[in-house]
């Protein structure tokens, strides 16, 4: 309801005798005051619709987005793209929670469980897919998992995928040994003090499930899982907390094995480090998406998503961050580098990857994240 309508209704109630003169004048005065206070900010809010804010992981990804998507988009639409970064998805969700509606618009988020978390917090929007024609190039399996969470609609477009597999230093661990031991390589007592691990509760529980021969999306013996996490902890040199730290630990040979993100390992291999990478059976597959937050200017965001999903942009970003794009290789020629990336699926079916079941993981989030926090600290 706009302000004019409100005043008309007030006047109608006053004329009908539902409001006395004093209350009527008081309400009109209050409305005037509110208008006077709000107008300067309303102007800013209006101006804000002339720009879209995007938040991502920074670095080469941002550069590729700027070159292939943001600048052409601004040139075409006149809408400016404000480019921000975040250190982790957890940090970003805290920022969103503390923000004003519409302050943040599009984010490069990871995992379907993050999508479900945003949905649980009432932060999802509904995309008009007709405004995103490039969505037709995306692997259908990747969009389907999001649709299941939001009753058939989409609040995001899938963008890339990868795996959290096992990285190992070939000077100390052979390919055969890594393959033979699989996830259990990370609880091998002979590697005490030479193992690393990501301090993320989901990854730890996923790998502990594999180490105890359980389904990572349906572990039934959690005591065994916690014990496997303790065993891993006692063998670790360090829990790493960022991709840069992971690469440093492996490159400096501080650690010989850890679970690792496929793109980061590829980057190390490109730099000439003799690091092997293995996706064990039921290894951790994940996807990233471009998520539109509730109260964003939808049409402007949808148009930007279309630019970002354009094959040239997607391929440039994928080559920069070393994760395969969400584009279906049966529909789009992905060039020479992408087919060589770890986790790449030439069939476009992604049948070989196991993704996290968001219902299972988010249903236990509160309890398990807390329990892992304690075990991580020696309990």
């Amino acid at each position, binding site marked *: 309801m706009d302000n004019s309508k409100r005043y008309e209704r007030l006047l109608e109630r006053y004329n009908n005798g539902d409001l006395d003169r004093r209350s009527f004048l008081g309400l009109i005065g209050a409305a005037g005051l509110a208008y006077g206070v709000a107008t300067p900010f309303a102007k800013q809010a209006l101006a804000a619709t002339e720009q879209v804010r995007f938040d991502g992981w920074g670095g080469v990804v941002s550069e590729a987005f700027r070159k292939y998507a943001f600048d052409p988009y601004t040139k075409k639409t006149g809408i400016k793209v404000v480019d921000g970064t975040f250190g982790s998805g957890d940090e970003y969700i805290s920022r969103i929670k503390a923000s004003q509606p519409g302050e943040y618009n599009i984010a490069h988020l990871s995992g379907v469980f993050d999508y479900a978390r945003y949905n649980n917090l009432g932060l999802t929007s509904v995309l008009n897919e007709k405004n995103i024609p490039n969505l037709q190039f995306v692997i259908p399996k990747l969009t389907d998992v999001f649709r299941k969470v939001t009753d058939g609609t989409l609040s995001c477009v899938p963008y890339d995928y990868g795996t959290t597999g096992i990285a190992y230093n070939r000077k100390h661990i052979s390919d055969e040994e890594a393959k033979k031991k699989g996830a259990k390589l990370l609880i091998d007592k002979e590697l005490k003090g030479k193992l690393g691990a990501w301090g993320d509760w989901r990854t730890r529980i996923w790998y502990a499930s594999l180490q105890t021969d359980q389904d990572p999306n349906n572990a039934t013996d959690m005591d065994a899982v916690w014990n496997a996490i303790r065993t891993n902890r006692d063998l670790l040199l360090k829990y790493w907390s960022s991709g840069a730290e992971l690469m440093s630990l492996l490159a400096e*040979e501080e650690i010989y094995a850890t679970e690792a993100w496929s793109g980061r390992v590829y980057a190390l291999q490109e730099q000439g480090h003799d690091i092997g990478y293995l996706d064990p059976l039921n290894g951790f597959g994940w996807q990233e998406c471009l998520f539109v937050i509730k109260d964003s200017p939808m049409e402007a965001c949808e148009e930007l998503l279309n630019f970002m999903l354009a094959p040239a942009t997607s391929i440039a970003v994928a080559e920069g961050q070393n994760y395969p794009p969400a584009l279906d290789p049966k529909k789009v020629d992905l060039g020479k580098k992408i087919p060589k990336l770890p986790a790449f699926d030439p069939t476009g079916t992604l049948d070989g990857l196991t993704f996290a079941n968001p219902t299972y993981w988010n249903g236990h989030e509160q309890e398990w994240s*807390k329990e892992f926090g304690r075990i991580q600290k020696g309990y």
Partner: protein
Amino acid sequence: MTIETREARQPWILLSPSLVAITLLLVIPLLFIVVYSFWLRTATGADQAGFFLDNWNEALTDAFYRDILLYTLKIAAITTVACALLGYPAAYFIARSKGNKALLLLLLMLPFWISYIIRTMSWINILGVSGAINSILISLGIISEPIQMLYNQVTIVLGLVHFLLPFMILNIYVSLEGIDVTLEDAACSLGATRWQSFLEVTLPLSIAGLAAGGLLCFVLAAGTYITPVILGGPSDAMFANLVFEAIITQLDWPLGSALSLMLLAVLGALVLVYNHFLGMGQLMKGLGK
């Protein structure tokens, strides 16, 4: 308006920008945190407003939080003692040096020009498996395999001392600068040795600076977050890391608020203890006022 009234108002007028800033940026956010600590986090991650004592009950009765708090205080205490032992001779040397004092003070301030995170990470290049120390020892043939020196309690203390030592030195230096050097000469002329004159005259007179530096180092060390993340081992977490985890990883702002207030209360109690024994006036003296 009389002159007396105007003079009485003047300090408040001058203080008002600071008071407004403190109210808006410290007191009001702190009140929000107090209110938050009585809310609850629901299973979906949303907060449930109300007055619940669950977070306080958990924070105050769970041995996990108590143990990490004690560990944090232990690390802060060790760091403070190390800073005092290393900082006093350095501050004494600067205070008593002639001619190159400005240069020495500039050198002391130099680390502040580099990001704290970068300074902390520099230890990885020094103590790492392929860092400077291991490389030198291996090239000299003293060791054949690199020694694992990083990622333990010692490196956390090392990182904290590296960060906090300038604060300690500056506080002691300011205090030593305020001491009349002829007092030491007078003590010597009355038969005291140099060491006795230091112990009986200089040290007691500079204790305010030492205490001010100690308080500052302890409080900053106890609230540290980044040093254990970069230089700590798998189980080396300090209390601020728990607050981070509760608020960021678990999205449990109510529990995180209760934990942060708990740390604030402990450090506040420490300041009260300091005030009881030394008085805040000593802190001002230590800061050269």
